[in-house]
């Protein structure tokens, strides 16, 4: 099928082309249409020079020397407004991740108390390790007793007033010293976020550098706090991911089964949906209604969570959520929190699809709300799945268009799994890095954004890196993009440079390792910290780089900030709203280097972005004498 240039320009993914053409045929709108209708987007907002922090405003600063206001009513300059806006984005992003972490701590607590309706402690090994980190005694105690103490300890990280946040001490000593010297070692997760809101209130902190430092502190509390807690506790409860084979892209939807999509970010609900989809009673009901089975598939990071742990296939990344519904083959799309487009309400209304919201924190117009509570987790999940199964009879087979594309992938490379693949120690990896077979490591992560061609930046940046012998670790929507083009198969080693190819082939691993969901970027931090500590250097000395080629969310701003704060040079593919302030832009792209040993760069072209990362890696190698 030939598609119009307009459609082809929106994505590199053939399923997107097919479903956009289908949307056009049905007269349905998607994020791409709404983006077009939004143009032009306000330039003041793009530059970050628009302030709505008080009601003397809204104020906006003109970027032109000779025309328009240079100060807000209160006197705030572009530098002040940009810095405040940026750290408010960090606060929102850190809050989102950390609330996710808090919810898991809560689930662990309920499970330990015996009140979790169906949860259990799956990874006792990890529980023991974490307990040791928190100085919780394990001798002769049951896993529930240990978990109770651990839950209390991680729960306390959120509300505490004085640090340190325990997991932040996984960072190399030199890094922690640096944070302390700069006064950005976080004290408690919530405290740093609240302090951003205080400082950005009218008339409080109006020093751009001081503001940005607080932003970094909150971001560290996210990366080494809230997010890391989310990852670690998920592993304790649901099991630490191990290499698992699965499939990716819209073709994982099945024409003859009940299709249930789990979408959003938290594994708590999706774990139970997966379990309930295997319930004999519900399978029998599905059969009675003429379906061959119950097919649970994921989207976005909830999808990544169950992909990594159960090999549940993943239907696509952020920009494919509407397209999945447009297949007409989805009985229910079940959502929790984050990155769920409110547009799904209207869209599912055009199909038989049930749109089910489950979090007390996230309701959507047009959704059926079935609130999820951990103490009755399995029962609620079963009811939700039952509703989806019963909905199968309303499917209109004539309206079903499912793309053929689905690609195999090998996922589940948690830090532990990487160590296991290396034979139990980081030594072989270090050897390969020292020998130059592997030039370095790159973490490529982040969302999709209709401002740029869907998946183009993700896939090309990653391909360019592996071609140059850079081992790529990935999470979030980048991971899904890579999975969809086969980069997560061991066979993809053929696309890697000679050194990396041999390493991957001898270990049987792909050149692109799926480390999980967005909160799991904490796993990348852990790996970098372990490597740095093994070499006796700081993270900023390592031949590693980060990138978010198509980012859009506030979480991504927080992630970028903690990655840079951790000492990792990071390239952004879409422009953040900071260009209205030369001072802030310079601080982030050059000044930060002296303070924290890393900077941001902005480069929309993935090939050039790869070059920036590679030359950074080369520089670090040279400095280490490699």
């Amino acid at each position: 099928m030939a598609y119009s240039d307009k459609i082809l320009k929106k994505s590199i993914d053939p399923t997107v082309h097919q479903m956009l053409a289908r949307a056009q045929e049905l007269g349905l709108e998607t994020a791409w249409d709404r983006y077009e209708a939004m143009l032009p987007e306000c330039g003041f907002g793009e530059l970050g020079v628009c302030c709505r922090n008080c009601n003397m405003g809204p104020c906006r600063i003109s970027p032109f020397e000779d025309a328009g206001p240079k100060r807000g009513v209160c006197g705030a300059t572009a530098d002040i407004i940009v810095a405040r806006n940026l750290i408010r984005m960090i606060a929102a992003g850190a809050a989102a991740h950390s609330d996710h972490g808090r919810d898991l701590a809560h689930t662990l607590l309920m499970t330990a108390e015996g009140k979790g309706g169906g949860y259990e402690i799956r990874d006792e090994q990890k529980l023991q390790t974490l307990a040791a980190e928190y100085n919780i005694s394990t001798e002769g105690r049951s896993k529930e007793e240990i978990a109770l103490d651990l839950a209390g300890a991680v729960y306390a990280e959120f509300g505490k007033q004085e640090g340190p946040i325990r997991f932040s001490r996984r960072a190399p000593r030199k890094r922690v010293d640096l944070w302390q010297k700069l006064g950005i070692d976080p004290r408690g997760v919530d405290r740093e976020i609240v302090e951003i809101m205080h400082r950005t209130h009218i008339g409080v902190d109006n020093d751009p550098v001081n503001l940005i430092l607080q932003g970094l502190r909150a971001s560290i509390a996210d990366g080494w706090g809230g997010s890391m807690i989310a990852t670690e506790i998920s592993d304790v409860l649901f099991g630490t991911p191990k290499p698992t084979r699965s499939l990716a892209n819209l073709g994982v939807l099945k024409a003859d089964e009940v299709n249930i999509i789990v979408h959003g970010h938290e594994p708590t609900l999706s774990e139970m949906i997966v379990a309930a989809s295997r319930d004999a009673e519900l399978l029998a009901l599905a059969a009675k209604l003429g379906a061959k089975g119950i097919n649970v598939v994921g989207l976005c990071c909830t999808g990544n969570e169950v992909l990594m742990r159960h090999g549940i296939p993943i239907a696509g990344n952020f920009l494919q959520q509407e397209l999945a519904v447009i297949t007409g083959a989805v009985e229910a799309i079940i959502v929790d929190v984050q990155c769920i487009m409110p547009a799904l309400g209207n869209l599912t209304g055009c199909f038989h699809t049930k749109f089910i919201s489950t979090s007390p924190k996230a309701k959507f117009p047009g959704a059926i709300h079935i609130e999820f509570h951990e103490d009755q987790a399995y029962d609620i999940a079963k009811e939700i799945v039952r509703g989806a199964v019963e909905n199968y009879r309303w499917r209109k087979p004539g309206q079903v268009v499912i793309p053929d594309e689905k690609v195999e992938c090998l996922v589940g490379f948690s830090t532990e799994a990487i160590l296991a693949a290396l034979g139990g120690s980081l030594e072989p990896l270090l050897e390969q890095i020292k020998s130059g077979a592997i030039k370095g490591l790159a973490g490529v992560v982040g969302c999709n954004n209709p401002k740029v061609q869907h998946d183009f930046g993700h896939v090309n940046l990653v391909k360019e890196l592996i071609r140059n012998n850079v081992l790529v670790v990935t999470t979030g929507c980048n991971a899904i993009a890579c999975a969809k083009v086969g980069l997560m198969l061991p066979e993809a080693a053929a696309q890697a440079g000679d050194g990396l190819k041999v390493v991957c082939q001898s270990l049987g691993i792909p050149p692109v390792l799926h480390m999980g969901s967005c909160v799991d970027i904490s796993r990348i931090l852990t790996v970098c910290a372990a490597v740095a500590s093994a070499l006796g250097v700081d993270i900023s000395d390592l031949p590693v780089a980060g990138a978010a080629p198509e980012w859009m969310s506030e979480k991504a701003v927080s992630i970028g900030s903690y990655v840079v704060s951790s000492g990792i040079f990071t390239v952004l593919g879409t422009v953040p709203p900071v260009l209205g302030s030369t001072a802030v832009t310079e601080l982030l792209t050059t000044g930060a280097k002296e303070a924290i040993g890393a900077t941001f760069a902005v480069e929309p072209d993935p090939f050039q972005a790869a070059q920036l990362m590679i030359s950074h890696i080369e520089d670090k190698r040279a400095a280490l004498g490699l």
Partner: protein
Amino acid sequence: MEQFEGPFLLVDPQRCMGCHTCELACAAAHTRAGSIIGAVLARERLHRRNRVVQVDGVKLPVQCRQCQDAPCVRVCPTGATYRTETYTAVDQARCIGCRLCMMVCPFGAIHVATTTVAGQERRAAFKCDLCVNRLGGPACVAACPTQALSLRYPQQEADRASQAAARQFLRSLASQPQLGS
């Protein structure tokens, strides 16, 4: 100063931020309340006569060019669109909402929307009227935070351009003495 032709709006695309402030100012200037918030409170309909668009990454507002030989005037079957000394106007009372003017306007600067004409809900044409009834001139010009818009008179523009050209000519003469004698 004597005016030979009516004024027009000049847009400097390099200054336009795409903020849509001019659209809101335009809509507000044509309400009874005179402000966006006042109009929203009074449940008045907001109609802008301009539109900020983006082409190839460049943002700019588009509005009626006040054509001398206006296609919308020529095509209108009822004489609702007409030309005055200074601008092209619409008499909404005569408009039948046929959209012929929309079809022929090369700038997409005229559109038909629901409004109240003489106490009745009707579809009628809207276009930029240069805010002729507004003290202080065009609302969009006054509102634009970056001064991307200005009201210009053709004669003044011609004078400015020919003066600049003349100056340029003199300068090149001065730098090339062999042309001088």
